[in-house]
């Protein structure tokens, strides 16, 4: 499809038009922080924010969702499964890294056994990806082969160029959305295309100057379990870890969840909610916990992202370099430090 464009001023009208038909999820600022949220007239949209605090993961895999509800009347128990999503929705303004995050989730939830809740959302969601214009110091998506100026696997890609946004539908869903946008979009011309290419080039030049520009994944990937698992480096690295779930919950790819019951007084709502492998009660069983030290839990998270996941998924890492954990870890620990610590250790350097 041909390149279209929309002016920044026209965005509110676009939002309203989309929201009239479907739910629209996009970066919204609440009390100073930007996260993906539902659009409404009063929403403080912050589309140009580089990074939302949480990734766009919630749109397809919400932090908490009910699976089914049991209601008791007298001694009779009625079980009502939660309805699967059956309405179209749009997630607007996802960055390339987060789109890749969704691809990671697809691997987990769309392979057999398929997670029907996730699948329903994926089937009904339209992804509008937005190219990055100014990546920040914590960005390292390039290490995973992601081009932030060319988000892949989205239904629509938009590029901010000055006060304009270039718009290109990539899939049928994207075409439908383009149709819905109607006259708010106009055809882009050669000048726009040039400006866009310049913008992309600028972004790439920024990428090269950022501190993580030279980060590689050397030494990491599939089948590295044996050489990494018993390394003494873990013991040195984990010490500052507070065992909180910040890294997990801001991560676009973490997919672990717990299933719990909520007592409503009239019955039980069985729900699932994100869990963190950093938590001491993660995978707690009657006999105890299979990882009973924070070192083991810390190792699990990074080994999973950088070794186990690629081992089981044709080399695909379950990290996308969004850098949220770099920004948000309360103890300033992060995956980049882990990647590099091992690379140094393997080269015989001390940290």
């Amino acid at each position, binding site marked *: 499809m041909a390149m279209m464009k929309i002016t920044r001023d026209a965005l509110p009208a676009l939002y309203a038009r989309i929201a009239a038909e479907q739910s629209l999820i996009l970066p919204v600022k609440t009390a100073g922080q930007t996260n993906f949220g539902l659009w409404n007239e009063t929403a403080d949209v912050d589309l140009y924010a580089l990074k939302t605090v949480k990734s766009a993961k919630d749109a397809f895999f919400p932090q908490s969702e009910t699976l089914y509800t049991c209601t008791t009347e007298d001694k009779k128990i009625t079980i009502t499964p939660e309805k699967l999503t059956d309405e179209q929705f749009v997630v607007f303004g996802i960055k390339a890294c987060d789109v890749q995050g969704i691809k990671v989730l697809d691997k987990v939830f769309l392979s057999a056994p398929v997670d029907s809740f996730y699948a329903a959302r994926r089937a009904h969601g339209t992804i509008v990806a937005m190219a990055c214009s100014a990546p920040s110091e914590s960005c390292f998506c390039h290490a995973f082969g992601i081009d932030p100026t060319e988000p892949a696997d989205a239904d629509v890609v938009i590029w901010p160029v000055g006060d304009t946004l270039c718009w290109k539908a990539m899939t049928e869903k994207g075409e439908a959305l383009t149709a819905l946008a109607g006259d708010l979009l106009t055809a882009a011309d050669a000048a726009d295309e040039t400006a866009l290419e310049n913008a992309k080039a600028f972004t790439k030049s920024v990428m090269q100057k950022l501190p993580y520009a030279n980060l590689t994944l050397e030494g990491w990937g599939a089948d590295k379990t044996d050489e990494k698992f018993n390394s003494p480096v873990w013991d040195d690295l984990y010490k500052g870890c507070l065992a909180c779930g910040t890294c997990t919950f801001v991560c676009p790819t973490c997919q672990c969840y717990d299933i719990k019951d*909520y007592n*409503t*007084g*009239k019955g039980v*709502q069985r729900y699932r909610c994100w869990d963190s492998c950093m938590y001491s009660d993660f995978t707690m069983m009657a006999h105890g916990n299979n990882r009973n030290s924070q070192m083991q839990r810390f190792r699990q998270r990074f080994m999973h992202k950088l070794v186990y996941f690629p081992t089981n998924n044709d080399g695909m890492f379950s990290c996308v370099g969004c850098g949220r954990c770099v920004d948000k870890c309360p103890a300033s620990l992060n995956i980049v430090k882990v990647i590099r610590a091992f690379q140094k250790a393997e080269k015989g350097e001390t940290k």
Partner: protein
Amino acid sequence: MPLNEKTGEFTPKIVAFCCNWCSYAGADLAGSSRLAYPAEVKIIRVPCSCRVNPMFILRAFEKGADGVILCGCHPGDCHYSTGNYYARRRMTLLFSMLDYIGVEKGRTRVEWVSAAEGVKFSTTMNEFAAKIHELGPNVRLEDLRCKN
């Protein structure tokens, strides 16, 4: 199902924690003196006002209570000497916090009722229920999952 929901009127749910030694006995005295107060008030017996955890109070609101009142022995008269003094500080701070986050004042209350104060028990419950009626349903602390 509540039997009198047919009226469609707001019938608040009110939880009254009463210490075993003074206030529960005070409620008994209100009963034996036939001093009426609204049936909306349901009493939970605890050994001492100091047994009441702030979490119980929040739990009640979460599950749909519209008002929570805690009754204990008068300061100085605690069966366990000092329990109500601790309860007094805990509840003062909790109530202040609830006010701070915007929960209407008056949804929570502490009253010291002795075993001899049947009249006070009944008056207090009448007053408290009236206040809750005036405030209307608790929406700021309820958990939506507990609604139908």
